């Protein structure tokens, strides 16, 4: 067995060890990692998330591996190349191969006062902890450096509640990435966050307080004074090449351990990867190229021939909430190049394309404020423009522009730069049978890292003429509509029967809830009995809505938004007695948050005894029928909107559907109930009701279209009955009514023909199905609390039912309980991965 010593345990060092270990199946290498920091590898790219409440533990990249001897807090002091040993304070480590992954150190400009208490750099978790500690009780902070890291540090100080200044020597923020106009736009965003920006000025000294004990502020080269109780130096990084240099290894002109494209130094046993390496003289300060180098050396140590091909230094990031992207020759350094710029002060978008002198080839560009065009543009660098420049730069309206763009992309253009996947490779994968995005991801790795190219993958599928598979998931070849017909016609009652006879495997989180919904729509009773319970998503499973900390929210039905004072008091008492956070919803009801699983039955018991029932806020089902107060009180009202809303909500309550269904009734044309933003909305007229269908709020708001006018209440209800049941039978999984109608051949006219003229001869069947639903409705909460067997499922721990989940803790915000800050954990995205050209 040969000995491998890895110097450094940062992101790249860790990635290298994992890559080597996963491929070294023969166990050729014994691995020792010698690390300076006392902490195992962590995600330095997301370092600033630490100030958003993400813990050090969550940033950790460490994985247990008994085959790796990880020695933390034991930096390598020198490498003796004659004796082939790495020397630390703790001993000597012989090596057959040694890999430097020492990263960078922060550059601190040579001015007075950098050693004062209260002056920090921004590189390690220890730095951040020290900053947080020092910031306690302080008011002002300053950051030296207005680049990427400086702006991150400024945001950190902001989040710590400090009045913050940024000092940048260059004439604009992020000088490396953006041009002057882009920097000006960025500055507007940053200043709006109350960060004071000083550009075109250096720091001449950091001054102490009169007692000399701590920092007091900065003197700038323009003579001005910035007071600061804390100063963060983020003026750039330098490769950490000192140990290699002392060992007699060559370094690059601007530092960095000099290596060839195999990442090997002149000493064939010594390698360097990541920010400390100067590959053919060039250093890369991004993690993705570092990962690529890690893969190269892992491959080489196991006999491979991988080389590092150089890296695309394009970047897209979100800084202080602003999208910023730069790619290719962002600064127009190419001789004779032309700029096309687009500035919109209204939407505050700035974009620039750099074109070749004949305006035919895209060389690079800068985007600030809206980076949605980044994937297409970056992929087009070096090739012909994929469309007219202004169409490419203007913020996307309907995606049509980019569709023509992607068709025009050259085959060799990289669509996924994280994994170096070209358009040709993706189109090839599509032709070999990849019929959807997950298949392309699995086959090519495109879209598996940052994900920004996923819209392009979809467009490539579309322009390749791929008939998108209608298969629900890997377990069923059928669409939801086909499954619905199979279940209905064959009278199938269980998922097991359906998957055995018509599918394969044991289902998943996609097909199981879809089948659960179909079974429920077909009147298969209580949704948590027998096998049906195993199909339900957690919300349906616990008849409540799961929240980020694993607690649930409870929404009792308040039909039409009408509620008596007595019932309001009951809700208040329940919330108070169980310590729940209360909020009024958009659907005119009250949401009670923070209920633990084992509390749910007791909460429901109280509510049910007071005459409440489930509001089905957790289900893909009818939610609410919202109403304005209508003719009962309102001097403008022409019909009783509340009365109709209550009747409709009670008629369709509990109706399971492909997606949630919302409704509203307005008592006059003033439309105070916002009925046109609903799946079915009703607006009173002098002589009856107008029915609108296919509206929604949400991600893509859409107004409902007029379906029929001046209906009697009976006709209205009949049409809504048929509309809902036809939707339930024929829509796709998670397809709302708007998309369902849009996708329908013949659209709204066809829908009218089916519902009003019975063109398909379905109406009797649809009417009967709704009648069955109305008759068989039962409140799921009551059905649960009335049955001790069912209640038993609502337990914290099967072996400790009296112990609540100890990880659930609350803080108080504006007088109400909320998940404690430490428990708020934003979703962590996957690590970027890099392909290696062989």
């Amino acid at each position, binding site marked *: 067995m040969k000995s491998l010593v890895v110097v450094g345990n940062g992101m790249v060092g860790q990635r290298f060890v*994992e890559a080597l270990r996963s491929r070294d199946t023969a166990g050729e290498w014994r691995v020792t990692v010698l690390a300076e920091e006392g902490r195992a590898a962590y995600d330095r790219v997301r370092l600033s998330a630490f100030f958003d409440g993400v813990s050090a533990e*969550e940033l950790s*990249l460490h*994985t247990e591996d*008994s085959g790796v001897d990880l020695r933390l807090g034991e930096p390598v002091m020198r490498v003796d190349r004659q004796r082939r040993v790495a020397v630390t304070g703790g001993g000597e480590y012989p090596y057959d191969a040694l890999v430097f992954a020492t990263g960078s150190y922060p550059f601190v400009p040579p001015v007075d006062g950098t050693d004062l208490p209260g002056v920090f750099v921004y590189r390690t978790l220890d730095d951040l902890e020290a900053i947080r500690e020092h910031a306690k009780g302080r008011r002002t902070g300053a950051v030296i450096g207005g680049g990427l890291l400086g702006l991150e540090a400024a945001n950190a100080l902001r989040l710590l509640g400090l009045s913050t200044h940024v000092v940048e020597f260059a004439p604009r923020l992020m000088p490396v990435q953006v041009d002057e106009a882009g920097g000006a736009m960025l500055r507007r965003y940053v200043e709006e966050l109350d960060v004071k920006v000083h550009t075109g000025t250096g720091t001449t000294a950091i001054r102490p307080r009169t007692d000399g004990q701590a920092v007091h502020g900065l003197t700038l080269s323009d003579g001005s004074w910035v007071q600061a109780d804390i100063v963060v130096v983020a003026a750039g990084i330098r490769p950490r090449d000192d140990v290699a240099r002392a060992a007699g290894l060559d370094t690059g002109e601007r530092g960095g351990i000099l290596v060839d494209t195999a990442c090997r130094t002149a000493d064939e046993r010594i390698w360097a990867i990541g920010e400390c390496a100067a590959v053919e003289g060039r250093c890369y300060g991004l993690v993705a190229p570092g990962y690529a180098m890690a893969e190269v050396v892992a491959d080489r140590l196991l006999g491979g021939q991988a080389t590092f091909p150089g890296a695309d230094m394009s970047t897209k990031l979100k800084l202080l909430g602003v999208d910023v992207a730069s790619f290719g020759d962002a600064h127009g350094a190419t001789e004779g190049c032309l700029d096309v710029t687009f500035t919109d002060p209204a939407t505050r978008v700035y974009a620039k394309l750099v074109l070749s002198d004949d305006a035919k080839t895209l060389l690079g560009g800068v985007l600030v404020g809206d980076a949605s065009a980044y994937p297409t543009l970056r992929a087009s660098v070096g090739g012909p423009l994929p469309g007219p420049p202004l169409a490419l730069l203007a913020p996307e309206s309907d995606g049509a522009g980019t569709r023509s763009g992607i068709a025009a992309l050259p085959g060799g253009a990289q669509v996924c730069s994280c994994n170096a996947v070209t358009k040709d490779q993706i189109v090839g994968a599509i032709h070999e049978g990849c019929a959807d995005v997950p298949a392309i991801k699995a086959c090519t790795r495109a879209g*598996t890292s940052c994900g920004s190219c996923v819209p392009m993958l979809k467009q490539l599928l579309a322009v390749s003429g791929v008939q998108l598979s209608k298969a629900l998931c*890997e*377990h069923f070849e059928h669409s939801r509509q086909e499954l619905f017909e199979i279940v209905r016609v064959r009278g199938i009652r269980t998922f*097991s029967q359906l998957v055995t006879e018509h599918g394969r*495997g*044991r*289902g*998943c*989180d996609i*097909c*199981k*809830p879809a089948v659960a919904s179909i079974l429920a729509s077909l009147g298969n009773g209580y949704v948590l009995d027998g*096998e049906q*319970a*195993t*199909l*339900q*998503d*957690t919300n349906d*499973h*616990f008849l409540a809505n*799961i929240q*980020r*900390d*694993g607690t649930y929210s409870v929404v009792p039905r308040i039909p039409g938004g009408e509620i008596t004072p007595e019932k309001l008091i009951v809700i208040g008492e329940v919330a108070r007695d169980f310590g729940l956070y209360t909020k009024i919803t958009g659907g005119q009801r009250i949401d009670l948050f923070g209920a633990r*699983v084992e509390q749910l039955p007791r909460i429901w018991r109280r509510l049910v005894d007071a005459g409440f029932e489930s509001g089905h806020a957790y289900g893909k089902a009818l939610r609410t029928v919202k109403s304005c107060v209508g003719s009962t009180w309102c001097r403008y009202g022409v019909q009783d909107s509340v009365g109709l809303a209550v009747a409709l909500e009670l008629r369709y309550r509990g109706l399971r559907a492909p997606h949630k269904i919302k409704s509203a009734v307005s008592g006059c044309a003033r439309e105070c109930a916002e009925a046109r933003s609903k799946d079915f909305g009703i607006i009173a007229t002098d002589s009856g009701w107008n029915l609108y269908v296919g509206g929604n709020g949400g991600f893509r708001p859409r107004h409902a279209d007029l379906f029929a006018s001046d209906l009697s209440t009976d006709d209205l209800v009949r049409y809504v009955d048929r509309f809902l049941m036809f939707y339930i039978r024929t829509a796709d999984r998670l397809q709302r009514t708007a998309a369902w109608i849009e996708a329908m051949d013949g659209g709204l006219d066809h829908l009218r023909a089916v519902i009003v003229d019975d063109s398909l001869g379905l109406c009797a069947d649809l009417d009967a199905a709704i009648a069955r639903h109305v008759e068989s409705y039962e409140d799921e909460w009551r059905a649960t609390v009335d049955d001790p067997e069912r209640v038993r499922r609502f*337990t*914290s*721990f*099967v*072996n*400790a039912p009296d*112990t609540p*989940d100890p*990880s*659930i803790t609350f803080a108080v915000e504006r007088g109400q309980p909320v998940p404690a800050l430490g*428990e708020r*954990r934003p*979703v*962590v*995205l*996957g*690590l970027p*991965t890099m392909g290696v050209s062989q």
Partner: protein
Amino acid sequence: MTDTLTERWEAVCPQQRVEPERGVAALVDGTQVAIFRTYDDQLFAIENRDPIAGANVMSRGIVGSRGEAPTVASPLHKEVYDLRTGECLDVAGVAVRTFAVRVRDGMVEVSAT
């Protein structure tokens, strides 16, 4: 890797408390463990904490399969995990801890070592 001599098993519940294709949560030596039973009556145990969202909810996920792998999907953001290895099949590099689990005298037991 388990050393049977030092292994300690903790009984958590009768076998039938874990219903097919469902999970239960248990507290084993202060660690929250999610125990699942697949349709073919195999038992699996993983840490109950969703490693991505941080909440203790894995026992409430949907049990199913992906290819040959028996799986559970996190109820929060639906990432799917291989019950055999704890590996996340949707996000590279993410995994949950797994525990040995067995049935003795009608009781489900989880390895507490």
